[in-house]
């Protein structure tokens, strides 16, 4: 039997590819949690995940209320999908979610990026997705360090104790 030696986690590369509140926050919370533990963290936003670092969109994220089996009414009854198609429902549910998170000291996206970068975390945008959505560095949050290729991402992922996490 070989003796398994525990190796501490030293760096996380977190990839966010979707724009819903829960997808974006999963990545942000994991990155922030990493820097708070002294673990190096780099966030890479791609495809619809770019909304989270696009100045115009970042604080207007929504959660999906249609086709989301985890969505429930206050009280626990299932949330009817047909209700989700009514204009304003998705915005209302999203606003409620943000309010509940704020009560737990989970900040809005721009402030969350402030917190992560204050701890030394780095924010990157995917070049291919930025090209596709016709976004330039000026459209993105000032916290975005660079627009990089997937090759650049892998080049940054070297070193013992690194994990790549795709949320």
């Amino acid at each position, binding site marked *: 039997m070989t003796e398994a030696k525990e190796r501490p986690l030293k760096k996380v590369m977190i990839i966010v590819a979707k724009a819903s509140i829960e997808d974006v926050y999963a990545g942000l919370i994991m990155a922030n949690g990493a820097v*708070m*533990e002294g673990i190096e963290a780099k966030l890479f936003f791609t495809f619809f995940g770019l909304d989270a670092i696009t100045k115009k969109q970042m604080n207007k994220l929504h959660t999906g209320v249609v086709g989301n089996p985890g969505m429930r009414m206050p009280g626990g009854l299932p949330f009817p999908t047909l209700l989700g198609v009514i204009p304003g429902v998705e915005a209302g549910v999203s606003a409620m979610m943000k309010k509940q998170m704020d009560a737990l*000291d*989970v*900040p809005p996206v721009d*402030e969350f990026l402030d*917190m992560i970068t*204050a*701890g030394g975390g780095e924010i990157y945008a995917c070049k291919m997705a930025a090209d596709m959505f016709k976004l330039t560095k000026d459209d993105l949050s000032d916290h975005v360090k660079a627009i990089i290729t997937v090759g650049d991402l892998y080049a940054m992922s070297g070193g013992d104790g690194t994990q790549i996490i795709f949320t």
Partner: protein
Amino acid sequence: MAEKTLAGKTVEVNDEGYLLNRDDWDKDLAAEMAKEDGIELTDKHYEVLEYLREKEAAGESLTIRKVGKSGITDIKGLYQLFPGGPLKLSSKYAGIAKPASCV
């Protein structure tokens, strides 16, 4: 759980070094704890520690966001004061439990 002698005082700590009784805490003890991690406590550090102790006693949940808005220091400053553990280390030196918070 173990006993540890810090600043001439024998106190009970958990296996991560957090005090079990917050009343055992004093400034010299905090300084000695921080020294073990290579951190020299300044007045600014103590301001953060006192703030955490106060909020914890009031039953509030502790987050770096809250400390960052306390007016003592911002989040960047907090990371500089307690490198590698802005909330984890500060809570330890403040003699309170490790915060069960993700932010």
